[in-house]
């Protein structure tokens, strides 16, 4: 079990650092009544924003409805998801809404997400807590006007060491002082990241954790995925590749299609990619971004230990790519010239006319004169017929 989960605080007092902020947070809950401004927790990742909301909902007997910004990405989603909750309190007990990563809500006017959220925040009838990593963008400035903001800061390294030593003691584990300091400094005040890295070090499992992979490009990500020694490690890599989902699917496709795996394996992998593609297509069509959370679980089906698959940018083999590049440009110039004579587009010529012309040339019904390089190409093409 991950230490970050195993030692997730059970009470507000179990948290570490940001004592003032915690106090203000608890006071806000104690004083909350209808009409109280919602709360915005701003702070870097891993300082306890989500944990604080979870603990408060439990301590103050609220049923927390937890949403991510991807659930409330646009006006329609916000109205569909939040408004029923605000209007049916008796059915749902004592609801409380927690919206994480609110700085990720679409700010473009045609989506209207921020405006719709602000309207709800202005007239909140239940406790609403928002969390954001960054509070300085324009859309956040608009949101900040209608909420009470509590800033959470990264923890000082010595306080992090105190916390880590307590956990190491409970785990009966040791890390040499030099590595310990390095771990603490690399975490930049992020407790979750520090615990993940420490656990990796202690257990001898060196997964590329969230933080380290954030900075990797897609090539390194895909290669690390296929070099993983276990499915857990592959999952960690996959979940940490924060890139555009379309790019992710394409990268897996091009890497698999150009690899030299067996036909059966290829078939299975392509089936997985097809499922991922279907899901992404559905997300794009319906704008149901909450479904995105299932994409990585589908793509995990592409993992196989000790496989030869490595990242490839192009989804065609080099031979075909070369032919497309060099022969393609020559065909383009031929098509351009002849299509003018035939009053058709060059693409229509290349797609529908050229094969017949080549057949006619092969059977000596037609004769064309090309320059030397094109002649060679035409002969090669005729030979392939």
């Amino acid at each position, binding site marked *: 079990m991950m230490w970050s989960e195993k030692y997730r605080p059970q009470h*507000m*007092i*179990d948290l*570490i*650092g*940001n*004592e*003032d*902020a*915690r*106090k203000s947070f*608890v006071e806000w809950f104690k004083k909350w009544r209808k009409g109280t401004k919602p709360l915005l927790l701003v702070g870097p990742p891993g300082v306890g924003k989500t944990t604080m909301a979870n603990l408060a909902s439990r301590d103050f007997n609220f049923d927390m409805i937890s949403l991510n910004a991807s659930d409330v990405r646009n006006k329609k989603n916000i109205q569909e998801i939040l408004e029923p909750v605000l209007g049916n309190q008796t059915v749902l007990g004592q609801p409380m809404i927690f919206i994480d990563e609110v700085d990720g809500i679409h700010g473009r006017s045609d989506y209207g997400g921020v405006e719709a959220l602000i309207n709800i925040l202005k007239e909140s009838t239940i406790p609403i807590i928002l969390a954001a990593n960054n509070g*300085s963008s324009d859309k956040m400035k608009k949101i900040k006007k209608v909420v009470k*903001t509590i*800033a*959470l*800061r*990264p*923890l*000082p*390294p*010595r*306080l992090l*060491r*105190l*916390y880590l*030593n*307590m956990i190491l003691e409970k785990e009966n584990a040791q890390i040499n002082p030099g590595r310990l*300091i390095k771990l*603490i*400094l690399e975490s930049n*005040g992020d407790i979750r990241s520090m615990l993940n890295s420490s656990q990796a070090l202690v257990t001898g499992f060196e997964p590329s954790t969230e933080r380290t992979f954030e900075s990797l490009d897609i090539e390194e990500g895909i290669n690390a995925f296929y070099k993983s020694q276990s499915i857990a490690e592959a999952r960690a890599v996959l979940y940490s590749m924060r890139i555009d989902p379309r790019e992710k699917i394409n990268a897996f496709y091009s890497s698999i299609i150009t690899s030299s795996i067996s036909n059966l394996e290829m078939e299975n992998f392509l089936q997985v990619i097809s499922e991922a593609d279907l899901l992404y297509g559905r997300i794009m069509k319906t704008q149901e971004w909450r479904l995105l959370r299932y994409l990585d679980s589908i793509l995990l089906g592409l993992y196989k230990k000790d496989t030869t698959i490595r990242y490839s940018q192009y989804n065609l083999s080099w031979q075909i790519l070369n032919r497309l590049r060099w022969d393609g440009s020559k065909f383009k110039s031929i098509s351009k010239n002849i299509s003018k004579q035939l009053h058709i587009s060059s693409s229509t010529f290349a797609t529908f006319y050229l094969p017949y012309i080549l057949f006619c040339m092969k059977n000596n019904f037609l004769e064309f004169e090309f320059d030397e390089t094109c002649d060679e190409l035409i002969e090669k093409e005729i030979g392939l017929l």
Partner: protein
Amino acid sequence: MSWRKITMKFDGTCIVCNKKVNANEIGLWSKGLGVKHEKCAEIKELRCVICDNPAGCLQCEFHDDCDRSMVSQLCVCKKCETLDNTFTQYQISVKDKFVL
């Protein structure tokens, strides 16, 4: 990150203390980060949450890597760090000083 001393043209919110920086007041501004009071910009020493004394930042082994203006403002001093059950001591102190 460079901080510029400016005379505030408009009211702003100090990123350190979260209080208002009034127009015409001197503030320190940095592009993309915001503004802070002159007094908030002075590098302070963190305080020990257990004994309430200065945390001894100048002698701390993390001195060069700890951005004291950005981190949570309470820490533990070297002396308190060597106590038995320091974390429990920390929790007791937080419980006493902050009603959670």
